[in-house]
């Protein structure tokens, strides 16, 4: 867990200190990739709290999701469906909020602030699969 935080700090330092800046033309693809990466990161956090975490799925999901999100937006731009970007933002945004909501519930339950029956999946209709995608 801490190794990720350490890597995160190193990554931020690398990005801030490097003289290289991505051309603005590619910022669209990077932004959607960042969103996908954030989504996977929170999905992984949620999975680890639920006890279903798997490192291989998390790492492959992180990079694949980011690349696929950027790749799909690129494809959309090529075939004249620029709004595919919006579709990606909406889909990823909904999942982000869902994951955050589940994490909040799990934390509340862990701290004993939430009463009621034990529920490993606060949203049973949406099984924990964020890190699998």
């Amino acid at each position, binding site marked *: *867990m801490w*190794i*990720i*935080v*350490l*890597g*995160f*700090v*190193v*990554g*931020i*330092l*690398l*990005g*801030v200190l490097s003289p290289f*800046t*991505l051309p*603005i033309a590619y*910022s669209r693809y*990077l*932004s959607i*990739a*960042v969103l996908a*990466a*954030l989504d996977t*990161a929170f999905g992984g956090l949620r999975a*680890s709290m639920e006890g279903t*975490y*798997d*490192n*291989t799925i*998390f*790492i492959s999901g*992180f*990079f694949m999701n*980011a690349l696929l999100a950027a790749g799909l937006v690129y494809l959309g731009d090529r075939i004249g469906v620029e709004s595919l970007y919006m579709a990606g933002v909406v889909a990823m945004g909904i999942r982000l909020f869902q994951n955050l909501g589940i994490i909040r519930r799990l934390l509340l339950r862990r701290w004993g602030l939430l009463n009621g029956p034990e529920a490993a999946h606060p949203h049973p209709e949406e099984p924990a699969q964020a890190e699998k995608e």
Partner: protein
Amino acid sequence: MERVRRMPWATALVGVALGLMLSMQFKVQRQVALADLATVQRMEKLVAQLAEAEAHRDELAAEVEALRQQQLLSVKTQNEYQALAERLEQAQIHAGLLPLMGPGVTVVMADSSLPVTAGENPNNFIIHDEDVLRVVNELQAAGAEAISINGQRVTGRTEIRCTGPVVTINGVRTAPPLNIVAIGNPDELERAITMKGGIAESLRFWGIQITVKKESLVRVPAYTARLRLDYAQPALEEVTP
């Protein structure tokens, strides 16, 4: 968590990638914001410069007018320069530097009053520089001795040119309705514009409003734009005394 220990470097790489991507995106977005700001600042600066230049131009035009009056006065008051003053006056009349008056016509041109229906080019219903040029050309051909458009004297150096939604004449922007004043034989000038198949008829086809009125006395102002010549100079050996 046990599995993390099996691939610590791959897991760290996830953190590095996330941090790198986030900070890179922050940097790019900051650049975008700065670029927008720079454009707005540049625009504001240019607008201020334009206003300043225009105020300066008006100031100088007033100064030129005052100096011309002064020059005319001082030349005229001296008897020995009387002949010279007369020649100067003739030259100034021909150069358009003196306001003139006499019989003539006023031509008023305004944009079309017809509603533009779908499928028609709205450009056909507004006055263009070439319409003004054709009217001026007809007046010249009919013997007009002095012409002004919305207070701008037409001389040999006058341009009549579309600049966006307005017409620039002598470097001054003016907009329809255009009031064209010409001194000359009123009957001939009027016929030149209103003759069958002439300019008025073809413009009226598009609904452009053009009216010609014969006048017993019209006034044409003097040319007030810049007079300096940067390139041309007198070829004195060719002047016949």
